[in-house]
Structures are given as C-alpha cells and as structure tokens.
C-alpha cells in the first residue's frame, strides 16, 4: 500500500512538476498567466495518439514520435505567443481571456477532428519490473525518468547557458535587459517555447497512464494553478515542491480516501485544494518561494 502511494506520488507529482515549471516559467519571465498551458498538454497527448495509432498508417517508432510531438507543440506555443499573446501582454485580463480562448479552440478542434469520446493509448514501453517486491510498469519508470531528465535540462539551460542568463535577465528587468543587448521579445518567445515543450513532454508521458479526451485540459489546469500558487508564482523550486505535495495529496485520495470522505470525496478534494490555494493567496500571496513585484503589492 505504502509502495503504491510512493509510486503514485512520484509519477503524478513529477508530471505536475514539469507542467507547473512551464506555467511558472512563462509567468515569472513574461508575467503571462497562461491558462492555455494544459491545452498544449492535451494537444501533445492527442499528437502521440495520432502518431502511434495504426489508423494513420504511419506507425512510427516511439522515440521519433515523442520528439516530433514535443517539437511541434513547442513551435505551436511560440506561434501562439507571437501572434496573439504578445500584443496584449501588458493587460492581464486580456491575457487570461485570450489564453482561455486558445484552450477552447484547441478543445473544439480536437473534438472536431477526433470526436469527444475518451480514448486510451498503449504503454510506450511494455513490461514490468520488480523493485522491493513491488511490480511496477516500465511505463511508470519511463515517465519518471523523462520527468527527471526534463527538470535537470531546464535547470541546466536556465543556470548554465547564455540563453538561460538572458531569460533570467529579462525576468528581472525587461528594460535593463534590453539595454544590455538582449532582444526581450525573442527571449520571451523562446521561453514560451520551452514552457509549452515542457507541457508537451508531460502530455506525452502522461497520456498512456490515463484516458485522453479533448476536455482533459481543465482539471490539471486547476491543479497546476494551485501548485504554482502554493510554491510561489515564478519560482521553479517552489513549483517542484508544490507539485510533489499535491501529488501526495492526490495519491492518498485516489488510493484510499479518508473514511469520512468516502463517496463524494473526489468532489470535496477539489474544494479543499482550492481552499488551500485561497488561504495561501490571502496569507502569503508570494507562496513558499515566490517573489512579488513591487507594483503587485497592495
């Protein structure tokens, strides 16, 4: 039992972590609250389904399919940023509306193309392994491995490369970064590409573990928002820690809801998680590790 909780915590926490890192990254750098973030996750899940299903007649191998999906979704994210988000970046209400509209478009187009029903994808890697007497599907290990690699890669990009320094400079002060010869708009677009590529990776590795449907973007969006607010909007460390806290909560409630809440527990779960978010927002709006900008304080 405890073993299953640990596995579930690690897998769902890891997936939430890379989703939340992307969400937090684009907020921290561009101050864009991207409500379409999990729509890119959904697009990637459907892209995987499309490329791996025999219907298309392609039947690609797993590795190239994953890479193609991640690159295409990342490019889509950059395109969406360039065309519709960047022009309204200064008005946060407009950004929220435009990104939710993008998510609606993605959902409607997927319904149009694939129909609204739930689907399943076969595991990307077959087989199971035994660790400490537990049988774990290789898919879970793959998901964990990919998540770990993605997190390390993002950390390396942000801390070691020239691009990462530029991204952090723009996040700190766009104008000064501009004076230092950094093209802010290009850096923001690349950041958006990284963020959506992370969402795509999450979609690809999560798709086989769950059922996919065009409407699957809404529930994880709530979770991701709660994760980044608890961890602190704009903080990557906070996002990872918040994601594993939420992963633990969801693992406990999925596997054995407290006896009191058995039955309607899943619904109250959302209420409790959102209540936690509201309390964090009121008591400590910057979350555990986040930073508030001066003009956002009251």
């Amino acid at each position, binding site marked *: 039992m405890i073993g299953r909780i640990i596995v579930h915590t690690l897998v769902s926490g890891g997936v939430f972590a890379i989703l939340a890192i992307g969400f937090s990254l684009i907020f921290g750098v561009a101050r864009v*609250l991207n409500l379409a973030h999990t729509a890119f996750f959904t697009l990637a899940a459907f892209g995987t389904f499309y490329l791996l299903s025999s219907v298309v007649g392609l039947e690609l191998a797993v590795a190239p399919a994953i890479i193609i999906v991640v690159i295409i979704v990342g490019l889509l994210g950059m395109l969406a940023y360039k065309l*519709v988000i960047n022009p309204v970046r200064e008005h946060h209400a407009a950004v929220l509306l*435009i990104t939710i*509209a993008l998510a609606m478009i993605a959902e409607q187009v997927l319904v149009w193309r694939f129909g609204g029903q739930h689907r399943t994808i076969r595991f990307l890697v077959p087989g199971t392994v035994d660790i400490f007497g537990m049988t774990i599907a290789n898919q879970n290990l793959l998901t964990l491995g990919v998540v770990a690699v993605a997190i390390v890669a993002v950390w390396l990009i942000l801390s070691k490369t020239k691009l990462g320094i530029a991204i952090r400079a723009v996040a700190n002060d766009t104008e000064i970064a501009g004076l230092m010869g950094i093209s802010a708009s290009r850096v923001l677009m690349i950041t958006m590409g990284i963020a959506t590529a992370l969402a795509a990776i999450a979609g690809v590795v999560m798709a086989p573990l769950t059922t996919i449907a065009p409407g699957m973007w809404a529930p994880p969006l709530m979770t991701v928002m709660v994760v980044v607010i608890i961890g602190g909007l704009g903080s990557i460390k906070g996002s990872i820690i918040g994601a594993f806290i939420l992963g633990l909560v969801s693992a406990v409630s999925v596997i054995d809801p407290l006896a009191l809440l058995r039955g309607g527990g899943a619904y109250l779960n959302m*209420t409790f998680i*959102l209540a936690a978010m509201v309390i964090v*927002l009121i008591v400590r709006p910057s979350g555990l590790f986040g930073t508030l900008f001066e003009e956002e304080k009251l």
Partner: protein
Amino acid sequence: MLRRLLKNFRYGVIPVPGRVIAVVFFLFLYLFPVISGHPLYMRMFIFTSIFAIFAVSWDLLSGYTGLVNFGHALFFGVAAYTTGLLYKFLGWQPSVTIPLAVLAAVAAGVLTCFPALKLRGPYLSLLTLAFPLMLLGLVMFFREYTGAEYGIPGLPSIAGSQTGEYYICLIAMTASVLIMWKLTDAGSRYVRTGLIFHAIREDEIAARATGINTIRYKLLAFAVGGFFAGLAGALYAHTHGIVSISSLNLTMSFQAVIWVIFGGIVSIYGGVVGVYILYPLVFLSRRVEALFSAMQKALPNVAATVPLAKILEFLHELAGRPYLVLAVIVILILLFMPEGIAVWIRNKIERECPRCKLTNAAWRRECRACGASLH
C-alpha cells in the same frame, strides 16, 4: 410633462445616432411579442435579457473598478441555488425566494470582497476564479440536497405565460441597466460612485490620498455586482425551470467576461450589445446548422457546385461548433478592436464637440448647440 418628454426626445435623442439606435432597439424588444411571438425567439430573448443583467453587473464590478473578477458565476449560482433550495424544501413561491436569493448573492459579494481587498492583478483573478469551483465541489458533495449533476428540476415559473415572463425579464433588464448606468455615470452631479470607481481603477493610492475610503467603495462595487448578478441567477433559475451545476462552472464566469469585452468594457451598454449579439449566435447555432445542411442538399449535383458545396459543408461544421467560433471572435476582438465593438461603432458615428462637450453625429460639420467646427 409629456411636452417636456417630447422636447427631450426631439433635441436630445434624434440628433445623436447612438441614442436613436438604443431607442429603436428597446422599442423592438418591447414590441417583439406583438410582432412575432414565436416561442423559440421569445425564449431566446428572455435569456438574453437575463444574461444582459449578468454581463452588465460584471462590467460594473470589474470593468469600472478594475477588480477583475473571474468567478462572477459565484453570485449567479448562489442566487440560483438559494431560490431552488428554498422552493424544494420549504415550498416558498418565487415572489419570496427571488428577493432572498438576491440578498444571498449580495452576502456572497461582500464575503468575496474581504479576501479580495488584499490582492490585485492576476492574483485577484485567480482567487475569484476559485470561489465558484469550491462551491461547485460542495454542491456535488451534498447531492441529496442539491441533486448534483441532475440539479433541482421543476421550479415554478415567475408568470403564468411566456409573454408574462418575457415582460418581467425585459423590465428587470431595463431597470437594472438604467440603475447601473446612473450609478456609474462619471459626469453625474448627484452620484459620485461612477467617478470614484474610475479613480480606483486608474490609481487606487491617489484615490485614497484624496480622502476617498476606497475599501468602502470596493465593498459597494462587490455588493452591487452581486445584487444584479444574483437577480439574473434567480430569474434564470425560474425561467429555465431547473437549477443546474452549469450555473456555477467556469464557462458561466467566462461568458460574462467575453460578452462585456466583445461589446465594450467600462461602458455598461457594451455588455448589453455583447449579450444581444453573442448569445443568439450560440442559441441559434443548431438552426443555422440545419439551414446550411438544407442549402447543401438543395444544391444540384453538378461539377460547378462542388466548391460551393464544400464551403457550405465547412460552414455547417462551423455552425455546429459555436464555442469555436466564439473563441476565435474573442481573440480577434481583443487583438484588433480592444475597446469593444459597441464602443468602436459609437466612436465611428458620434463625435464630441471640442468646445461644449455635447455629443454630435459624426457626419455634422459643426456642433448642433454651439456651432463650433467639428473638424
């Protein structure tokens, strides 16, 4: 009295195209049951009236004060469930439950305001986004009372006939919009709230420095916004006959925002225009879909009509996805017409006199009152 009214009409309405359009529009709405009375369109206009109240209440709360509320469905849903539960368990009639439901929505507005006072910008939007969803979780949990996804069916109508319902909702809409318009009129000599709401949005610290108790006015905005959104929610519950979870979900919150931004934010009339254009679009999409389908079938099956048939098929598919169309419209409006369609049109057909600040038709050479050149 009548003569003064006529004089006002002749010199205050006729020369200003925007006012003429408004008068014609309301005349059309009031005479619609006499002209047509088709039950489907009557039903559509009942709902558009109700949603116009809902949208304009969002404009008053969020557009004017800049407190962007992304959980406006909370007030709508609180009122709908209050009236539904009171009817289901106590058997009270709408004449009693609707006022109580509106009060409950005002209470919800005031309660939302307290945590909202501490936050601004995207943080405030996220906070308000969470409230209706939290309530939705509770509604789903207490399913023996609320019926969860089945809702509370069988609510009594507010009037005996559809025409009665139509006029009640229309009069409620007219009165609400008038009250909110007067309340937010920044140029008014009698009510200062409009001016103060603008001040809070533009620079809250400066407003506070001039001695305005901004907290009190924010509370007022939330209470008034809750009042009218609650009125819309209660009316919707009784005209729709069922309270369902759709009154609390994200779509309901975002619809209000979409309508107002489409029509024109910070203008009151923008919300009305937005609802009266976009709601029929979604409501009638099935009929439009059927229409395209029929046109497609009526085409003769020859090579020359193939591209036309393709276009019709595409339009037919598109009409079946009203939310896709809606989302594209929202993006286009935000990018190319950020002030909203009603304000954009108004700026095209009206011009303010630079000397006496009187509104003129855009095609006039000189001001109708003081004769100053308008170019």
